[in-house]
């Protein structure tokens, strides 16, 4: 419908698109969201099956290249030691995220000022603080107030159960005098806003059949739709259109039947994540923007940050009931988060305590590593590992580097023939040192907690969950893609609200900060409606 013009067109119905749709709904503007995926059916999620552990590596694999659902697009990540993870559906990657929900800290926005590296954000923790709280309330975040690693905040719901394994690890951290705390978790631990409380199904990362995990499809979208936001699913945007005045006029997309369509809009908001957004901008070439839309800085796709990831597994003598509870949510430690140059690197990392494996993964991993043999000893060895393992993830802050990038693959396309993204990425020397430090400290705390065996792994390839920095925010059009409230420097009715706009990556899972930034930008749009394009 080329003559049908909506006021606001949002591309992508994931974490940030849902938040911005919810926020803008109260303007009574006509708002439409286009999403390449469909609604998910929770009755099909992993936890509804006995072989749920298997489903996590197949239908609910984190890599689109493995999963290959109709909504997925291929990503060439052969030139990266870290493969990209995402999910394409209403709710986006929150369908599969673990819901570990720590915020960025004040120092994350002030790299240059505090550490003399990189750039400061044009906004601060204080600017986002009300939007963190708003997001926590909107979606239902569980946590324990008073974490000394953060400015004081009160999560609206009771903290996640840390279980026996959380206590064992807590004693280990205490023995070393290190920080730890029950992690903020995007999980309804109490009945909340029409959703029933979490019953500890376990594999949150295979979708939450209970609906207790605060994914965007069960939190923001039902409210946004009731408020009048239109959501078109199974529609994939090919490019954003611009006119001679260098204003976005809408998008070209393929509908569910593969037919090319045009949707006009007064304002276009991109919420496609740190890979999808630069891909779409680079695919949107025109006479005015031959290098991609909004790319006069040359920085679209540059400064990709992925959070190099390590894992330390500890095996304990006693049963810890360790595979019960939300898989990715238990406790965290931010003992090594802030810069201490005596460690040999700048910035730091988050330690995320996660639950152990279930029976199938315990057996498969043990058999493939040789620790669980064939024969009668299978049973005795299985019992030494099953229910006795704890995992500790190391989430390393990634520094922005222009050489780490998203470009367009010259050959690979998606099912609609749209050029696929190509990742060029390497770990910096700083990241290598930080990761090794984290793995060593992970072993130390596992041993302090009583583990009789530790196994380390890192950098882990299949861990590119956090896609950040590829359309960075800043006040200078020469060194950034969008301004301090998410508006393209080059196209005045084009906004970006996803992790692409991050100037730095922090050392934590970014979704709460992504949603806070999206709500902040939506608030700026609303407060500047009268002169939005000036």
């Amino acid at each position: 419908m080329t003559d049908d013009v909506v006021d606001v067109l949002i591309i992508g119905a994931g974490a940030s698109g849902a938040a911005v749709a919810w926020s803008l709904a109260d303007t009574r503007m006509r708002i439409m969201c286009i999403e390449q995926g469909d609604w998910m059916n929770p009755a099909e999620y992993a936890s509804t099956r006995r072989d749920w552990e298997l489903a996590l590596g197949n239908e609910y694999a984190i890599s689109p290249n493995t999963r290959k659902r109709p909504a997925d697009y291929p990503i060439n990540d052969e030139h990266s030691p870290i493969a990209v993870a995402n999910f394409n559906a209403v709710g986006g990657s929150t369908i599969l995220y673990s819901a570990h929900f720590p915020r960025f800290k004040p120092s994350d926005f002030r790299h240059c000022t505090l550490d003399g590296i990189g750039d400061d954000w044009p906004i601060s923790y204080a600017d986002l603080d009300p939007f963190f709280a708003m997001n926590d309330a909107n979606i239902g975040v569980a946590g324990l107030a008073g974490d000394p690693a953060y400015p004081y905040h009160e999560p609206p719901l009771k903290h996640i159960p840390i279980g026996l394994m959380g206590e064992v690890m807590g004693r280990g951290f205490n023995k070393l005098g290190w920080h730890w705390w029950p992690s903020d978790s995007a999980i309804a631990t109490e009945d909340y806003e029409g959703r029933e409380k979490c019953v500890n199904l376990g594999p949150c990362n295979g979708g939450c059949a209970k609906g207790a995990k605060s994914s965007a499809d069960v939190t923001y979208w039902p409210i946004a739709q009731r408020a009048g936001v239109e959501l078109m699913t199974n529609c994939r945007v090919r490019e954003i259109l611009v006119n001679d005045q260098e204003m976005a006029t809408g998008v070209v997309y393929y509908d569910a039947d593969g037919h090319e369509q045009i949707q006009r809009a007064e304002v276009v908001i991109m919420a496609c994540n740190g890979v999808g957004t630069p891909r779409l901008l680079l695919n949107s070439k025109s006479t005015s923007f031959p290098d991609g839309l909004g790319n006069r800085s040359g920085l679209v796709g540059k400064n990709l940050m992925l959070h190099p990831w390590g894992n330390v597994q500890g095996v304990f003598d006693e049963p810890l009931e360790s595979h019960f509870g939300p898989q990715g949510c238990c406790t965290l430690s931010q003992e090594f988060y802030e810069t201490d140059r005596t460690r040999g690197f700048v910035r730091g990392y988050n330690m995320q305590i996660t639950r152990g494996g279930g029976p199938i993964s315990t057996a498969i991993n043990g058999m493939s590593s040789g620790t669980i043999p064939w024969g009668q000893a299978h049973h005795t060895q299985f019992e030494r590992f099953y229910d006795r393992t704890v995992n500790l993830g190391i989430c390393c802050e990634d520094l922005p580097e222009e050489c780490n990038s998203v470009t367009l693959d010259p050959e690979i396309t998606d099912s609609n023939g749209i050029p696929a993204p190509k990742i060029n990425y390497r770990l910096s020397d700083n990241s290598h040192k930080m990761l090794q430090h984290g793995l060593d400290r992970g072993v130390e705390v596992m041993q302090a907690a009583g583990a009789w065996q530790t196994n380390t792994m890192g950098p882990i390839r299949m861990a590119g969950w956090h896609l950040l920095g590829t359309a960075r925010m800043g006040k200078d059009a020469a060194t950034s893609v969008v301004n301090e409230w998410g508006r393209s420097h080059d196209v005045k009715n084009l906004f970006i609200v996803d992790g692409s706009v991050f100037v730095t990556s922090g050392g934590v899972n970014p979704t709460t900060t992504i949603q806070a930034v999206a709500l902040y930008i939506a608030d700026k749009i609303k407060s500047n409606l009268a002169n939005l394009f000036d």
Partner: protein
Amino acid sequence: MADGIISTDAPLTADQRGIVQAVINLIIPVSDDGRMPSAADYDMIGYIAAHSPHHLPAIANDADKLDRAAHEKFEAGFVEMTFAEQLQLCESLRSDSPDLFRALATDTAICYYQQDAVLEALGLDARAPFPQGYSVKTGDLSLLDPVRSRGPIYREA
């Protein structure tokens, strides 16, 4: 269907099935105390045919390879050997060829650890996690006292 013919509904010959069945019993035999059943008590081949049929050609080849080795080293068919001899031969071959029966071992573990008797022997309910879920201890938060007493550790900015 003749025993020597491989088809989509009979992907292994009778001889191969016998060998594979014996190998499954080696991978996870009955436990010494009898609490855990043998994987061979279950229809593993049927499970593989239903869920991982692409593994069957390699499994058939490995069965033939194993039987040839049995004749060479023990002058007997694999299924006629004792459990200890079978295990010894498999371990010997797997030390040289780690991929031997790798897919079979994985499929066996996946199927085995979904069985009612197995899950119940591990102290689990024989069901999927949903809808009942599980009970998890809240945890002793007094353990956080030393963390609290240390005070803020983040940098103001």
